[in-house]
């Protein structure tokens, strides 16, 4: 007499189901594991090529490489440069690729490849320490020109951002006053802007951007202007004054350090080529899984062999769910509770039609042989054992005959679990003797029907994808099965069975 309240039970089920769905959603968002199996994601493959003339002495080449570029996520990077020692060094928050060789002579070419995934959520991180403007010293007559231009720009602006915009506008050739011409004629334009802004007490630096376009070769970096507005670094186009980074521009270098240093070589230069690829989103998620917080829940780290076993194993709960539904809610009678699931698993290996044919053939031949066994008056255990051996004979015979006749599918019969087949035959045979052929037919077709339903559910690509990549969804399946365990309503078949009760209403 356990009349417990069902509220805690339903609450627990609710928790199970929400936990499953929440975890799956979190992993989808965090790891980017796609809901659907076919989803594709773009990936940029960039190649930096460093050329220089070696002087027959020790060579050290050092290239600034992307470090957490805004708008992108780093997927992988590697260097291809035979004969060179290679390492990636972090130096004061700035990542550099370094090649070294004891002696090199003549034309040298080094490659550095990087794979990047567009990711809008990645923005420029605020620096740990607030940058201070550099002290700049100008000589006359530039000093006067700079002072005047900065004063003009300051008058028209209120914030570091607007100051920068106004300054860039004033520096454009169409506004060219005498002052600007004097300045621009001298030095590098972007460096000039940086110096002027620093002079105006605004921390500024240059950054090198790369316009990403599919299948381009020999591209050069474009300078961008970055200023610090007190909170974070902002990017400006030094020509137009436009704020923000244009789409598909990768900031290859952000810190104020050199792009390429070569010791022991001359005439060094860098050029870039790029290519856009699409890879399955799933593959992308797998590559990144190990590095991520929720990645430990994934099965991707397991050896491939175990992974493929889990792929099968994780489909079983789905089959169990189907069986529970068919028996509890629909009311289909099956021979043996979970025999249909095991048969369905075999169908997944054999594919449906050959599997069905093989299964029916084995059971039918087995039933005939069992008829003879029953007249031998054997003890149950030895009868079942004999039946198992007979089943193995039958499957062997079907495989051999099928192969000789040119049906390779005949061999798939070996995927059926032999013990289950033997028990199925035994049960069917007793059912036949006790309840007649009709009941055998009813339970046999019921079992096959449930097995086919389970097979259809388990072989759907989406089912395989979701169960393997979101194992936590099994919490939802568990919740549903528990919920069905409390279903006290009528089965669908009972509506037909109790039909004569209509007369008594």
């Amino acid at each position, binding site marked *: 007499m356990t009349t417990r309240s069902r509220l805690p039970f339903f609450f627990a089920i609710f928790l199970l189901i929400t936990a499953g769905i929440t975890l799956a959603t979190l992993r989808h968002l965090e790891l980017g594991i796609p809901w659907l199996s076919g989803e594709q994601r773009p990936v940029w493959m960039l190649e930096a090529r460093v050329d220089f003339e070696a002087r027959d002495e020790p060579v050290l080449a050092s290239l600034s490489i992307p470090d957490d570029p805004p708008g992108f996520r780093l997927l992988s990077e590697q260097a291809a440069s035979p004969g060179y020692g290679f390492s990636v060094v972090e130096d004061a928050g700035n990542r550099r690729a370094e090649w070294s060789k004891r002696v090199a002579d003549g034309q040298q070419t080094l490659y550095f490849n990087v794979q990047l995934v567009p990711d809008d959520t990645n923005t420029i991180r605020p620096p740990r320490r607030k940058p201070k403007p550099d002290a700049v010293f100008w000589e006359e007559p530039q000093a006067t020109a700079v002072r005047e231009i900065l004063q003009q720009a300051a008058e028209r602006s209120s914030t570091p951002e607007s100051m920068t915009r106004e300054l860039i506008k004033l520096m454009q050739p169409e506004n060219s006053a005498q002052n600007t011409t004097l300045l621009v004629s001298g030095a590098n334009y972007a460096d000039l802007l940086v110096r002027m802004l620093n002079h105006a007490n605004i921390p500024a630096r240059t950054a090198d951007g790369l316009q990403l376009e599919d299948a381009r070769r020999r591209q050069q970096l474009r300078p961008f202007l970055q200023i610090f507005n007190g909170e974070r670094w902002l990017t400006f186009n030094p020509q137009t004054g436009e704020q923000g980074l244009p789409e598909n521009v990768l900031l290859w270098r952000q810190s104020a350090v050199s792009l390429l240093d070569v010791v022991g070589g001359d005439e060094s230069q860098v050029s870039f080529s790029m290519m856009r690829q699409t890879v399955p989103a799933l593959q992308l998620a797998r590559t990144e899984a190990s590095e991520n917080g929720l990645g430990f829940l994934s099965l991707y780290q397991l050896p491939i062999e175990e992974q493929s076993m889990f792929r099968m194993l994780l489909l079983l709960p789905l089959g169990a769910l189907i069986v529970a539904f068919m028996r509890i809610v629909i009311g289909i009678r099956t021979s043996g509770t979970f025999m249909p699931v095991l048969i369905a698993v075999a169908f997944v290996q054999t594919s449906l039609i050959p599997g069905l044919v093989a299964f029916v053939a084995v059971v039918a031949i087995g039933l005939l042989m069992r008829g003879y066994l029953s007249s031998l*008056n054997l003890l149950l255990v030895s009868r079942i054992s004999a039946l198992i051996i007979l089943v193995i004979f039958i499957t062997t015979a079907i495989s051999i005959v099928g192969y000789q006749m040119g049906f390779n599918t005949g061999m798939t019969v070996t995927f059926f679990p032999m013990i289950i087949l033997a028990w199925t035959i035994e049960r069917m045979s*007793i059912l036949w003797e006790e309840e007649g052929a009709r009941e055998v037919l009813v339970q046999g077709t019921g079992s096959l029907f449930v097995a086919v339903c389970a097979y259809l559910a388990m072989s759907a690509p989406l089912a395989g994808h979701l169960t393997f990549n979101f194992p936590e969804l099994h919490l939802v399946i568990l919740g549903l099965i528990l919920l069905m365990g409390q279903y006290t309503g*009528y089965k669908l078949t009972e509506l037909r069975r*109790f*039909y004569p*009760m209509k007369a008594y209403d």
Partner: protein
Amino acid sequence: MDWISPLQLRKIGMLSMNRRNVDYIARYNERKSYPLVDNKLKTKLVVAEYGVKTPKLLQVVRQQHEISHFREQAEAWEGFAIKPAKGSGGKGITVITRRDEDQYVKASGAKVSIDTLERHLSNILAGLYSLAGTPDVAIVENLVQSIPELARYSFQGVPDIRIVIFQGYPVMAMLRLATTASDGKANLHQGAVGVGLDIGSGRSLNAVQFNRPITLHPDTGLALENLEIADWEQMLVMASRCYEATGLGYMGVDLVVDVTEGPLLLELNARPGLAIQMANGRGLLPRLREVEKLKRPHFTPEARVAWAMSKFGAFE
């Protein structure tokens, strides 16, 4: 296809398979009591202490080598029934009515040799008919001779009376008559006729075979309308006592009426079927709820039966 809407079923108060399992069997039947009813040998012993009679036990075959004793003793018996102690749904029960020289005559009239019976015993011991396929023992009981008033309705086989007992109260009853379709067995799903019996009087209400209403027995051709069970109250009390004996809150009690011994308990069932509702043309749920609502349950079987007869009687 003929369907009935679930709303209509709910209105009638039909107990469904799922509700029976969750709300009644799981809630009122304790697991530890199951072996008492799933093992006919244990049932016999435990109900005897509560004054409930069962058919006389002739022999218990526990081991393979004891089968040879069976051969010696069988010759002395007039008629007997071989049953697996842990069998369910009447599976594995062989009824021998008489001997014909070397052969034994089954209830169906078929003749079998002693070898066949021995093989049957050995199958029972191996667990072929037991609930989980576990090794079993075979019991041999004296043959029940049904009283002619009831026996004439049944085609072969012994008619038995199934009473559903809920917390010691008889809530529904039916008479089960074997037919040719059921091969002399009294199981409704095998084709036996079920005749609903009024709890208040023991009179027949209506009858079904294969879940469809009938008025005449398909084999004997007898009208099933004005059938009445003698000593009805005594039988209900006997069934009600099994509640004290086993502690099972929801069970089916199968009784037979023997010519010489009177009412006998055939077996108990911890998972009684739902077909009894069809035979009665009534749902079980309203009656079960009526019993659940009782604030002060009655303590003696007699008081419970009296209450149930007045509450669930259809006539008067």
